[in-house]
């Protein structure tokens, strides 16, 4: 059986390599545009390519976690690309001697930045998944996809103040949890 527009998502989930090739043909332009937008200001050779490869590998390794139809799949790949690119960007900024920094990151070191900079990002993901569904979505958009509060507000048809308020409360909760986790480790 050949891989086609109709069956590639299923074939990917079953672990057929031809589906991955199909996805590269179909979505490389999307992934490249997304990654390029975030990482090109770093002017660092190789990082864009590395990130793009990483995005497709993650799609491959996590295909069983995808749930939905073609349009959702396109969005999923886009979100993974954006998340990875931001992740690479943050790491790179930290590694650089001559820092090309992002204003937001440097001027207000938010609690979640600190958690992210704590080596283990998985911990933050764990913490976020303990929030209630709406907050979980807001946090994912804000901190993994780099969305602005205004855009999130529009998306959920809430006011900006309501989003900020939820973020504020969520952060407080996370910060408490994070401290507790740390204490447990010690």
């Amino acid at each position, binding site marked *: 059986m050949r891989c086609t527009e109709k069956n590639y998502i299923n074939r990917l989930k079953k672990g057929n390599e031809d589906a991955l090739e199909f996805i590269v043909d179909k979505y490389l332009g999307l992934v*490249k545009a997304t990654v390029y937008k975030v990482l090109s200001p770093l002017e660092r050779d190789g990082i864009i*390519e590395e990130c793009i490869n990483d995005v497709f*590998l993650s799609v*491959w*390794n996590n295909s069983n976690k995808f749930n939905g139809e073609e349009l959702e799949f396109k969005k999923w790949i886009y979100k993974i690309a954006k998340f990875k690119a931001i992740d690479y960007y943050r790491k*790179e900024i930290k*590694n650089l001697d*001559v820092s090309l920094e992002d204003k937001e990151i440097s001027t207000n070191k938010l609690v979640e930045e600190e958690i992210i900079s704590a080596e283990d990002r998985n911990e933050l993901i764990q913490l976020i*998944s303990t929030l209630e569904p709406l907050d979980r979505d807001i946090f994912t*958009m804000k901190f993994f996809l780099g969305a602005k509060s205004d855009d999130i507000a529009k998306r959920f048809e809430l006011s900006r103040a309501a989003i900020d308020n939820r973020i504020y409360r969520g952060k407080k909760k996370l910060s408490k949890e994070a401290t507790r986790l740390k204490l447990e480790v010690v």
Partner: protein
Amino acid sequence: MKDIYELLNDVDIDEGEIETMEVSDIEKAKVKKYLKKSIKKNKGWKKKGLVAAALCFVVIGSVGVVGITNPAYASEIPIVGDIFRFLDNGRTGMYDKYKENANEINVTKESNGVAITIKDAIFDGKTVSYTYEIKTDKDLGEQPMCGEWYFNIKGYKGGMSGGSVIKKVNTNTYIGKDDYTIDNEKDEVICKLNISKITPIEENVSNIEIEGNWDFDFSLKAIPGNKQIINKGTEKDGVKANIESITKTSMSFIINYSQVVPNELKKKWFGMSLEIEVKDDLGNIYKGQGNGGHGNDNDNTMYWSKTFGKLDEKATKLIVTPKMYLSNTGGGVSMDENGKETEIKHTVDADHPEKGKIKFDDVVIDLEK
């Protein structure tokens, strides 16, 4: 308990924000090739850490590049004709005129099953760049490093800064480019390159180390350049940024510039690097590559240089925007004459913030014809 891929799946976004861009078949093929290899090698693939470059003097590091966006030179793969351009990946356009100006060297040395060929070399008066090809009988991973790789310029005793790129282009075939920048300018350089060890850096192949003896000598005359003394600066928050000079050659232009920082700032910040952005009066924005800088710790002055692509001949003015990046993170290694390394480190506290930036006013330079 959800993981990030599930969280991302849950969040809905607007399809309208998704953008796409053109990609060539070669780019697609490269990604596929990489994926196939990674899947086979390791089912539970883990992202390899970013490669940390060891700092000698100042290493402006850059790693390999793939993805060919410009079909005009796609035909040059896998036999890479213009390595300068190939490794630049058409991104900065800085090396577009290098190949035609370079000296063809094409000297191959073989030792212990490894053939190294120095392909082209070029000297712009300040920076020596050469390209090379390595053919081996073993797989050295994606980015082999040069374990013992000594580059000398006869009669030159100062520090050198540089960068290096290496890229796998085919099975057991690698191409690379090294740049070495010296402090002052010279008309001619006699270069010696002694390679005695090649070390892969990826974990799965790191046990392979190839020792051998690959020695090269070549001399290069500087590409005739036209140097214009500028000595024009700007000052902000007590920091002086000065554009010292511009050298134009047939393939590039080099801006030499310097920074002078006041003592109180030196106490506050560990890293203070001046960067420049350059455009001309015709609206061209030039991308360049920093050559690193040199200075003395007892002195508050640092001298930098940055190389850009070919200058548009119709331009009459250059607009240089200096920016100073301040930081208290990172570190490095300083090395004395005997090769003894001392680690340089710094801490972040209330008086020493992590990062800062000073943006200066533009310096406008009238170009001599």
